[in-house]
């Protein structure tokens, strides 16, 4: 049995997960909503996270643009993804959701803008 703190929402339920006898998968207890079960199983088998960071821009008024991964990436790949993001430079005005790096490391996840540069510039 393993104890896991759920990070899906700020409540932070303490989950307990163990492999069920036979072919029944896992037994998860302690969750206050449905999302806890899936989270606990993923956490045991393939933990994933969303990365939020910034990329360089060519605009001196906004030296950095907030970005995020469009989906979750494996926990163990975070630093590799960061290396790719570090090399990116935004050379035109973008809005929230616009793709900055497509299909990063073939993970089927894009790096997208998480802020609207027009709003950041106040225009």
């Amino acid at each position, binding site marked *: 049995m393993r104890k896991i*703190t*759920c*990070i899906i*929402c700020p409540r932070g339920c303490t989950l307990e997960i163990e492999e069920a006898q036979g072919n029944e998968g896992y037994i998860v207890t302690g969750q206050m909503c449905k999302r806890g079960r899936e989270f606990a199983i993923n956490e045991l088998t393939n933990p994933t996270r969303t990365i939020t*960071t910034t990329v360089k821009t060519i605009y001196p008024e906004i*030296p950095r643009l*907030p970005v995020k991964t469009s989906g979750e990436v494996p926990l163990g790949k975070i630093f590799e993804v960061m290396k790719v993001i570090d090399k990116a430079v935004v050379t035109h005005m973008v809005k929230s959701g616009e793709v900055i790096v497509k299909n990063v490391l073939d993970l089927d996840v894009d790096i997208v803008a*998480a802020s609207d540069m027009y709003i950041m510039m106040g225009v």
Partner: protein
Amino acid sequence: MSEIKTYDVIVLGAGPAGLAAGYAAKQAGADVLIVEREDRAGGILKQCIHDGFGIIRFKQKLTGPEYAERYIKMVNELSIPMLMSTFVLGIQKNNELFELQLVNKKNGVFALRARALVLANGCRERTSKQVFIHGSRPAGIYTAGTAQYFVNIMGMLPCKECVILGSGDIGLIMARRLTLEGSKVLGVYEAKSTPSGLARNIVQCLEDYNIPLYLSHTITRIIGSGRVEAVEISKVDESMKPISGTEQVVKCDGVILSVGLVPENEIAESLDIKLDPNTKGPLVDQNFMTTMEGVFSCGNALHVNDLVDYVSESGELAGLQASRYARNSHNRNLIEIKSNNRDFLYVVPQYIDTSSDNKSAVIYYRSRDVKQNVKVIIRCGYNIVYQNKHSVIRPPEMEKAELDLSNISINQDCKLEIIMTEG
């Protein structure tokens, strides 16, 4: 001199509380102005690039800038005027009207009037002086918010190897952020025996990156002249006093402080509005009106919230009630809500206005200690009006109770009282 313009409601602050207050006041039909001292709206959300904002309000995990943008767009769609880079110099109340002296680059010093005011000034970080770290002042000591500004807005790394004092959420988030950007975070030191931040942040910011958390430890000395060279760490006892003989020196070039937030109420204090020593924000009724008629408080200026969703919620209520007051004020009848410091860090609001038409009240409370299997009860005399069982209650997590006051007769002899019991 041109005539002084009078608004129904002036909102001070264009962070998440102020934007929500302005939006709600305008929707309720008020003539509203939002005043902001920075050059951009959004408040601290601009630099909070991590996600997890808006789970309650928008049912989505948004980053701070994305959450702020939603409200900025809502405010723009209603064409609510915003005065940016504008500072309030002073406020007087004359004949039921507030007269504000303001200053900005475009207009110089100028005056405006308002029938109601919403204070949405947010909060400030405690500094090293406020937590009694003495000694010389080398470079390399930053509050977590300042470090966050350097990294996320300016794109600069404030240190290469650092320690973090305090386990507040911003400190935990900065531990991850600095690690992702290539700094080494040697450890997070917390004087209390339990973490201050949310459990999820301990997991996703520290455990994910193998950053150690040392509870019941504090920094007792900062070593270095010119630049931080090391810190002296000591264990502390239950009363948070350093235990001599436990000192150890940790080499680092940066110290990040995450030792708590304090509501910003300089303007409220200048108006002689009474503050609650527990929240450090104004005393308010269920409409978030302060002890001064016509002045409302919301967001982190009222009390430090753990979620921006609640900040927006309080802004919306304050804005709506400010617009109602601007049109039709009534004589208040304030009855205090009884609570105790033994079980509760604080309870907001502190009063119920029994003559208000608003018969629904949301009571926010925080437990003083981590406790298991407790019941929180709100009663009016022998009449129990609310009860909630908590399998675990922790100080970092704010709880709320929604009450319908329409069938409860609250008066000086029968006040609302909030109690915490076992079971």
